[in-house]
């Protein structure tokens, strides 16, 4: 299953386990340093995150984009009685997520530089979160994957709770309970599947799912006679679906998100939107779609309605917000809604039609690109908000500002680029993902795609609204002395902004990595 492009060294060395362990070691190191020298703590944390980035780039360099299956695999026996083995590996999707994580976490750390309370604990939690993210994106066995999926909630909860705003207690609790309910439902569904198949391995389950043998076997094993077999299959599907739907989030399971994003310190919001939300979409792609596509096809129309609602309603609500963080929180829901639209479109039964299958490839590629680009852009936007909050002492209302471009022109310029990227301006990275999603989905699910265009329009409206109300117009007196970006901030922002341009003008950078995996994923979905 390994690609021919790998050297023998790459084969035997446990790179992925190392990548998972490095941030955790960093967390312990940071805690051991103690709170006296805060600068040392911050730089140490950043260094460990930087090491992760280097390892990920090395993996990218050695990755064979044309190979099937998973690379850098490690396989060890773990709990034979439960048929659980320690199996990790990455394909194009996994590598993309690792790259995103290793970029978003340092951004999150940089945006948290101004935190003064309990600094070692903060950065230790961030590093622990990075470990959990890497673990989720590399695990190939449900038991192992679920450990990291759940563990990630703990640092996230405490990051929101301990350093958040005044409403953080309620928001953090809501976040936790919502996600837990979804996770419990998902766990129960997978245990029912395990009972039938005696395996937790994603690849094996995907094969069974695609053969159409999985759900009938599960239904027969459970022997519930109160419901028809189709309904039993749907119940099991719904359990697994709920776990991921809460995480992305999909309407109507999204209500935890705006408060949590708004109350969290901006550095944490970067991690939540840049990386953690992608866990949900990753779950849809890696787990739900391959294993449950027959069920998804049966209820495709309701699913598409939910995706459309996610896209349109969240954009509409973003337009009505007055808090900058809430605007972009709802905007995150909107951007990820496009991913779900495309995923549901790809799940659609097309009977082997070659032209439509090509559209599915486009849609899949679009999802991957959108995941990465949204992660990057959203992280950057919240970073700008953090920088703004630092200057204004926490003020971040839409109506509190005006005319800032006269006072902080460089800030305006760079944030403007990020805003236009979020809007989907061609030439910047935000465009290409959305373009491919729409191009691919339109022939597949025309009505849903057409309705989702409304989301694009409303997004344009509120983003231009942000630019107009924050940066243009009359200047309030109290902001007249606002300092512009420091040299350090400029130096750290330029690579990120540069990346936005690079990806916008030359998306092949990412497409080269993921295209093959996207095509394979779409091809493996047998049409029933």
């Amino acid at each position: 299953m390994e690609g021919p492009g790998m050297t023998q060294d790459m084969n035997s060395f446990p790179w992925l386990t190392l990548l998972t362990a490095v941030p955790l070691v960093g967390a312990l190191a940071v805690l051991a340093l103690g709170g006296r020298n805060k600068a040392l703590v911050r730089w140490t944390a950043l260094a460990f995150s930087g090491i992760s980035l280097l390892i990920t780039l090395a993996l990218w360099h050695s990755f064979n984009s044309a190979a099937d299956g998973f690379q850098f695999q490690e396989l060890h026996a773990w709990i034979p009685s439960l048929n659980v083995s320690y199996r990790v590996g990455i394909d194009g999707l996994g590598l993309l997520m690792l790259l995103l994580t290793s970029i978003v976490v340092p951004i999150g750390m940089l945006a948290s530089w101004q935190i003064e309370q309990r600094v070692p604990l903060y950065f230790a939690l961030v590093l622990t979160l990075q470990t959990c993210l890497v673990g989720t994106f590399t695990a190939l066995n449900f038991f192992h994957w679920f450990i990291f999926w759940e563990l990630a909630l703990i640092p996230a909860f405490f990051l929101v709770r301990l350093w958040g705003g005044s409403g953080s207690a309620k928001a953090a609790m809501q976040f936790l309970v919502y996600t837990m309910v979804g996770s419990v439902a998902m766990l129960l569904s997978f245990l029912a599947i395990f009972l039938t198949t005696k395996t937790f391995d994603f690849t094996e389950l995907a094969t069974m799912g695609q053969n159409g043998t999985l759900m009938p076997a599960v239904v027969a094993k459970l022997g519930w006679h109160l419901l028809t077999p189709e309904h039993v299959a749907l119940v099991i599907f719904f359990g697994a679906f709920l776990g991921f739907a809460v995480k992305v989030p999909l309407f109507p399971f999204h209500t935890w998100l705006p408060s949590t994003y708004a109350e969290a310190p901006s550095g944490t919001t970067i991690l939540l939107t840049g990386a953690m939300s992608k866990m949900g979409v990753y779950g849809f792609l890696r787990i739900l779609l391959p294993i449950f596509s027959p069920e998804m096809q049966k209820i495709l129309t309701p699913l598409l309605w939910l995706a459309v609602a996610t896209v349109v309603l969240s954009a509409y609500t973003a337009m009505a917000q007055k808090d900058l963080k809430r605007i972009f929180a709802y905007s995150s829901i909107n951007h990820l809604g496009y991913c779900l639209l495309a995923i549901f479109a790809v799940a659609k039964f097309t009977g082997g039609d070659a032209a439509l299958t090509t559209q599915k490839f486009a849609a899949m590629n679009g999802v991957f690109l959108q995941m990465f680009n949204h992660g990057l852009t959203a992280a950057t936007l919240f970073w700008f908000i953090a920088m703004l909050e630092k200057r204004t002492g926490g003020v971040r209302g839409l109506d509190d500002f005006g005319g800032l471009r006269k006072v902080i022109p460089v800030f305006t310029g760079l944030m403007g680029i990020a805003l236009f990227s979020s809007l989907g301006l061609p030439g910047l990275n935000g465009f290409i993902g959305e373009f491919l999603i729409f191009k691919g989905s339109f022939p597949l699910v025309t009505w849903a795609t057409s309705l989702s265009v409304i989301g694009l329009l409303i997004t344009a409206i509120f983003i231009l609204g942000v630019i107009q109300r924050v940066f243009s117009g009359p200047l309030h007196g109290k902001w007249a002395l606002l300092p512009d970006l420091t040299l350090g901030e400029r130096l750290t922002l330029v690579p990120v902004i540069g990346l936005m341009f690079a990806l916008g003008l030359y998306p092949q950078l990412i497409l080269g990595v993921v295209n093959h995996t996207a095509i394979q994923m779409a091809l493996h979905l047998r049409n029933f």
Partner: protein
Amino acid sequence: MLAWTIYISFLGALVLLLLPSRSAALVRILALTTTLVTFAITLTAFLQHRSGEMFTVVDHPWISSLGIHFCLKADGISLTLLLLTGVIGICGVLFSWNVDHRIKEFFAFYLVLIGAVYGVFLSFDLFLLFVFYEIVVIPKYFLIAIWGSTRREYAAMKLVLYSFIGSAMVLVGLIAAYVVSGSKSMSLGDLAGYPYSPHFQMWAFPLVFVGFGILAGLWPFHTWAPTGHVAAPTAASMLLAGVVMKLGAYGCLRVAMTLFPLGLAPWGFHILGLGSWRDVFAVLAVIGILYGALVALVQKDFKFVIGYSSISHMGFILLGLMTLNQIGLSGAVVQMVSHGILAGLLFAVVGRMVYSRTHTRDLPALGPMHLNKALPFAAFTFVIAGMASMGLPGFSGFAAELMILIGVWHSYPTLILFVGIGLIAGVAYIWRAMQQAFFSGTAPAAAVAPPDHPLPPITFPEKLGAGILICSSVIVGTFPQVFLNVIHPALNSPLFQGLRNGGW
């Protein structure tokens, strides 16, 4: 060699009582040494007997005319539980390092309790098991009545009365089994092999099961547990919830289910949808899970939250037992270990780390104390213990509950929804207690005035005890195979043949 765990514990208690009472340090060191030695013995035995099959430790005729032997045996299940007792024994001593009132008697009773628990887990002769089972009750009473807190005399009396009622029920069942089988032997193997009539088993099984079940916190006979655990001093709570309740579950598995497996068979008719004692106890177990969790959710006393959470977790064990398949039963045994560790940890935090410093367990009163800043180690330990308790993967609770849930899917899929609700309720009550006790009040961004009288810091014995328990939970959670390797052969042994014939 395993018999020495019993002998050394009792010997230790005796030596302690004979010591001159001047040196508190000597008493503590002696108690700690005793528990360390017994743990070392159990660990060695565990590592030596990897096959998990039953082996004889001691077998002497005792009261030959009645066929009673002093017979001790162990298999994979016993070894696992003995190991648990060893670990909790050590940690109980560590968390009681601050006891200064009548120290000698405290640790003497403690060691007698541990010794009797070892005795129950090792006994293969049912008379001997019963003797040890009764010996367990005496030190429990004194530990609670003398060193306890809230309403200690009442709690101690209630606990003892319930225990004796349970024991009486068990005794009736055992004597009946002995007589019906011809009054020849009290050995478990002999009695289990005797073919009792289905009619006999149908009434003997629930009698003995409920008898042991009372000690295991079977709903609705559980009411002694929250009161008793809350009133008990920390080490006693750790032992009571952590180990002694497992005696009840162990008795259910080892005695009731092996002697009278046909008692689990269908009655042939249905009442309220229940068609067998198995259905009845499964439903009672689920009710216990939900009831314990929901009542824990509304408690104002921190320790009561943990007390009721014990009922909820014991419900998982009993449910696992009733699934009657290998994965459910092994899940139940792993849950016995897991809950033993976690209950110990939770009571240690609430009782020893928090209560002995703050002198209050009232959640609304603890909030303003900003304990996450005053006692960060306690907060950290409670977070870990709480997460493990609610079944967070990576810790022992998840591994156990996973197996039990698979077993439940197999045998009682209709109950799964309720168990799922119980899991979520488990998240809710732990998180609520944690929030209110440690993380109440505003985030650290707001200025918080330092308290006038800072709380004493967490001592080294407490940190050591917490560390041992956390590591144990992680080990069981990430490498459950180590225990499954000995539990599965034990479940496949001839002793459980009758149960297996029931079909799994």
